[in-house]
């Protein structure tokens, strides 16, 4: 399979690889996918007053999965929770030029953003 230049760029120079402390109340963590399916994404958002100040990811998966999550961290930074929640997988597909067999990677990235936001919300409504 040949990759788009953007996928190769994100794969070779992934943005925002790493982890935040899961227990931090300002951090929302989303883990989606399954090892048996060949991709697992962990996306973490650092949120303050409803704005995503920082984002980090780790991904087990193909180049397109790594690129999708790397791109997602770039896109969410500076956005409000509500804005980030509206990011659509199709936008990731067109930005990275993903072929049809790789669309599930973009879906996973969208799911990861949503999962991280709901984790953050859940954590902060308990108090």
């Amino acid at each position, binding site marked *: 399979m040949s990759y788009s230049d953007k996928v190769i760029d994100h794969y070779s120079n992934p943005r925002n690889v790493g982890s935040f402390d899961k227990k931090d109340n300002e951090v929302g963590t989303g883990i989606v996918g399954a090892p048996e399916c*060949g991709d697992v994404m962990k996306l973490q958002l650092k949120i303050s007053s409803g704005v995503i100040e920082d984002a980090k990811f780790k991904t087990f998966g*193909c180049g397109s999965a790594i690129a999708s999550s790397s791109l997602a961290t770039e896109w969410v930074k500076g956005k409000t929770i509500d804005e980030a929640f509206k990011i659509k997988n199709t936008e990731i597909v067109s930005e990275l030029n993903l072929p049809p067999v790789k669309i599930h990677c973009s879906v996973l990235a969208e799911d990861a953003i949503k999962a991280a936001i709901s984790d953050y919300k859940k954590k902060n409504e308990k108090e």
Partner: protein
Amino acid sequence: MKLPIFLDNHSTTPVDPRVMEVMLPYFTETFGNAASRNHSFGWEGEKGVATSREQIAQLIHCHPKEIIFTSGATESNNLALKGAAEMYREKGNHIITAVTEHKAILDTAKHLEKEGAVVTYLTVDRDGLIDLEALKAAITDKTILISIMHANNEVGVIQPIAEIGRIAKENGILFHCDATQGVGKLPVDVDAMGIDIMSFSAHKIYGPKGVGGLYVRKKNPRVRLAPIFDGGGHERGMRSGTLNVPGIVGLGMACEIAGKEMLEEAARMKRMRLKLQDHLMKELDEVYLNGHPEKRLPQNLNLSFAYVEGESLLMGLKEIALSSGSACTTASLEPSYVLRALGVGDDLAHSSIRFGLGRFTTDEEIDYVGERVVETVNRLREMSPLYEMAKEGIDLNTVKWTAH
């Protein structure tokens, strides 16, 4: 050292220059149709074909007349299964094969099932070997054919061919062997191994693509196969069509060279393979060998690098030609059915890489590949949430994943 490095010699191999040299005149000078009986062009073509039959016969210990030339092992496998199913229809309709066979066998078997054949697919153990007792138990009075491969193309596992041949003989059943990965790399003796029909292909042994052969036993028993193509009745009526003389000449030369160099080459391949395996296992944790540790092709190394997905690993090794059992490298979303059959979990199947060494692989290349794989696996593990979780002591099997 030249880049890129080709370490995918189970998929195909480069033509050995010595093979190409003997082929060349057959394109432009001695280009005759081997079936033309009335002029020297035809005679020259026929002579080239006859020499090739001799060379192949020497390598696999058969009579030259027992070789049928085909377009490759896919066709040979089709002819063996479909030809036997049709020819021996009166005797029975049951075929025994194994789940780790090449698609050219499995899909042919599926096709025959649609036409009324009954097929038993033997399972394999963790090492990739079939169970001989299960084979015996599967035999019925309707069984006409056992088809088991010699060496597997993904994990290199070598089946106990001589034992299978003996069981087939004891039960009066024909034994077909897909020896595409074995011929030219491992010693083959069709009599000693009890093989009645055997597929092989030139491009896996430093010959040209698009030519292969089928050994069809002439005596004890005399095997007959119904042809797939109707036509001029070439190749004892089993495979019509003007012979691919240059290809056949190349196949013959490839077999001659393999016969002479096989033992030395096998020792060299094994040494390099173990060097690569040791290098990777010493520098990296959680690397697992797929397939039997000893009963395998000297050229084959199949490893799973836990917590790293195979396609992303290949992407990081783009100057090295390799293949992966990861689903992402195929159109389907399923990982390798061969690894699954060995009981390798889907997670580790997604993390597998096949290293296929070949005649032209050098020590320098092996050292380079070892270093690059270590570097890339480490980089990807740094990025892997699974590696992080495993290092935190989380048992990944207890995690509730959101399968999609």
